């Protein structure tokens, strides 16, 4: 199933792209699964997702924890630092 993933801040820099459409295996069901799969997929993924505990996510426009089930749109990023 096609999944649009977008990256922000240093996750984006390490991935080298702002977003991509991917087609992960069927057993990639949650945010944590996706992060783990991206970390294994290639070198830039290994660099961006070396510390899964530092990754935050939004699924379908809402902030989501690692156990959240992914739909067709996921954003992955470091903890926010606005204000």
């Amino acid at each position, binding site marked *: 199933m096609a999944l649009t993933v977008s990256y922000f*801040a240093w996750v984006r820099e390490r991935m080298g792209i702002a977003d991509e459409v991917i087609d992960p295996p069927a057993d990639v069901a949650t945010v944590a699964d996706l992060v783990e799969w991206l970390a294994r997929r290639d070198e830039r993924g290994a660099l961006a997702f070396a510390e899964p505990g530092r990754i935050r996510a939004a699924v379908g426009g809402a*902030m989501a924890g690692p156990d959240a089930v992914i739909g067709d749109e996921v954003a992955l990023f470091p903890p926010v630092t*606005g*204000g």
Partner: protein
Amino acid sequence: MIRVAVQTGAIDVAAELDIHDAGGHGASASFIGRVRGDDDLIELFLEHHRVLTEAGLAELAHAAADRWALAALTLIHRVGGMAPGETIVLVLASSAHRAEALAATEFLIDRLKTDVMFWKRETFADGRVAWVEPRDGDQGRAERWD
């Protein structure tokens, strides 16, 4: 009246105060966050999400409006590159009495720092570039409002 904006242009605090105050509320509190020029910082860049950032600000504003009796609320965040001294964020909250305006302002800036999609990148005079890490204590301050 709730006014929320994410903008690349400079935040005009005096103009925003005028818009916000059009109703002549009894008590207005504000918070202004500016770029500090510490450690020879020459640029602060604010990255955001094209859609979710403004949605996050609006959600936060409505959470404040649900919680306190507010006559007006303004929440404006700048994005893109900015220089030391420039305004990053402006929070204005007005109510008939001070307790609500002050509490809402503090809630909004505390939660903004942990709940809305902004990321700060610093560039220093020696060429060094670094993404800002969340400050110790920000999470704790935000959770006081749970």
